[in-house]
């Protein structure tokens, strides 16, 4: 295999509509995806990596257009955790997203306008269903699924929905369902968007976007991705300059959140943020199956579960709930809680520790 430096997004169109959990069906679905490495002749060396809330298909290498690295570039590549010399890595944008896969900003074929809020409410289950179509298109026989945060929920859903098909599942900084606190943060984020004067019931594509609302939503998100320790280390109580004695940006932490909000509105669609956070909130295989045991009982997968000590959005306790269910079911499961000062963001940052663990688990 030649050395790849650049990645390219491709598209796969589904020829049949998909029945969604909400009862509606969606046609003309287009999936944006990237692949790295080579699929072997047995078609059994594939790893599907699953992105979090605001990720895209661009997981690794450098995007030619933007010149930016993928969101998990430090984990995917030759000799990295997901070794592209050995594995065929697939990454796709989720259903409802805004990075090429069909979502609320896509054109509704029946109106020739963007769907906006006419887009059906999609779930983690629906996202996975669509990903399965892409994987089938490659003719893959058995698959390894891996993801952090919302990506971990998708990976879990893969092992529930396709118990025979998934051979290994890697769940990082994730949970079987959000707790009330996390749903509350998502509610605040959605409210910020919904109450923005430019929101116009989601029909803002030809005018000003609800940028203030989306920026506030992102600020809230960023608070939950860090932890007290990370914030202390990054900003402390440092001022940007001298106290302004007005309500402008005084503290470094304010400046950071402001900046994160500002750069986010250029890259993300507010409607997608509503839809994807809703999918996160709704996901609950425990309720769906009565308990997690029922959900996972048919799985043939082996599991690796990683949590981070300072992650309070997806806690070690929540990870252990999955671990203990799998132990009860006598499945092959390993669990590691990594020490980190990065909060939830650790799954994107602590790549050295994760690499060692994942490589060991994948048998290198």
């Amino acid at each position, binding site marked *: 295999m030649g050395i790849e430096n650049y990645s390219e997004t491709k598209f796969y169109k589904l020829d049949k509509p998909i029945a969604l959990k909400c009862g509606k069906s969606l046609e003309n679905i287009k999936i944006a995806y990237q692949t790295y490495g080579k699929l072997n002749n047995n078609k059994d060396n594939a790893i599907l990596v699953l992105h979090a809330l605001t990720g895209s298909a661009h997981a690794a290498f450098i995007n030619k257009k933007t010149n930016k690295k993928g969101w998990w570039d430090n984990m995917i590549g030759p000799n990295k955790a997901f070794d592209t010399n050995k594995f065929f890595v697939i990454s796709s944008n989720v259903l409802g997203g805004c990075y090429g896969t069909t979502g609320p900003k896509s054109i509704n074929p029946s109106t020739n306008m963007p769907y906006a809020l006419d887009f059906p409410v999609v779930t983690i289950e629906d996202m996975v269903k669509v990903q399965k179509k892409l994987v089938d298109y490659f003719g893959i026989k058995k698959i390894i699924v891996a993801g952090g945060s919302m990506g971990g929920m998708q990976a879990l859903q893969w092992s529930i929905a396709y118990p025979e098909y998934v051979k290994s599942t890697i769940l990082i900084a994730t949970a079987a369902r959000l707790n009330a606190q996390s749903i509350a943060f998502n509610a605040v984020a959605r409210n910020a968007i919904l109450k923005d004067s430019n929101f116009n019931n989601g029909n803002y594509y030809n005018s000003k976007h609800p940028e203030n609302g989306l920026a506030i939503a992102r600020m809230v998100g960023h608070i939950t991705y860090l932890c007290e320790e990370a914030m202390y280390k990054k900003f402390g109580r440092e001022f940007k300059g001298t106290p302004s004695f007005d309500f402008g940006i005084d503290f470094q932490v304010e400046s950071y959140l402001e900046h994160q909000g500002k750069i986010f509105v250029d890259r993300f669609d507010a409607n997608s943020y509503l839809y994807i956070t809703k999918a996160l909130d709704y996901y609950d295989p425990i309720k769906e199956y009565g308990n997690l045991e029922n959900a996972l009982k048919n799985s043939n997968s082996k599991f690796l579960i990683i949590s981070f000590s300072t992650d309070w959005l997806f806690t070690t306790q929540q990870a252990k709930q999955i*671990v*203990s269910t799998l*132990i009860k079911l006598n499945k092959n*499961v*390993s*669990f590691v809680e*990594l020490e980190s000062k990065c909060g939830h963001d650790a799954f994107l940052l602590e790549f050295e520790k994760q690499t060692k*663990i994942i490589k060991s*688990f994948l048998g290198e």
Partner: protein
Amino acid sequence: MTTKEFNLNYKIVCSLIPKKARILDLGCADGKLLKILKNEKNIDGLGVEISQDSVLKALQKGLNIVQGDLDKGLGEFQNSSFDYAILNQTLQSTKNPEFVLYEMLRVAKKCIVSFPNFAYWKVRLYLFFKGKMPKSNVLPYEWYDTPNVHLLTISDFFEFCYKRNIKIEKSIYLTKKKARSGFLIKNIANFFSEEAIFVITKL
């Protein structure tokens, strides 16, 4: 400990385990024993280990391993969900040995517990003549830097089990090269054994 002694300990633990049993190895370190049991007895095993480096080594051996602190209990495990729980050379380094043993007895039908015997005659002589905390191959640490915070003797263990209605099904006493099982007079075993291995159950 030297490799040779490890082998004897492993050999005996291995001989106590039936084929295809479901095993929980507590404080399994790098998973050496679990790997042996997997190869020799085709067991279905799971390890618990606190140290991240050890967890990595066990993962590399293809074992199922859960990072955890025994002193915090075995909350992830259901009652009687394992055939055997093993606590090999680890009891003396737990902060709360009584709690750990209760938890083991809760999650497994039978438990194998081994520890270095602090009443071994060489240990006694060391303390008697040198007047210092005994050190040996089995007890290699300095008093101020040892994980062994709850050293005990064979007689202590018998008394402990007796008072708590814990049944000792088997007792095996080890010296450097030899293992003797069973019905030695307890005080003699306590004097001559460097290490002991017990199979215990709830009464």
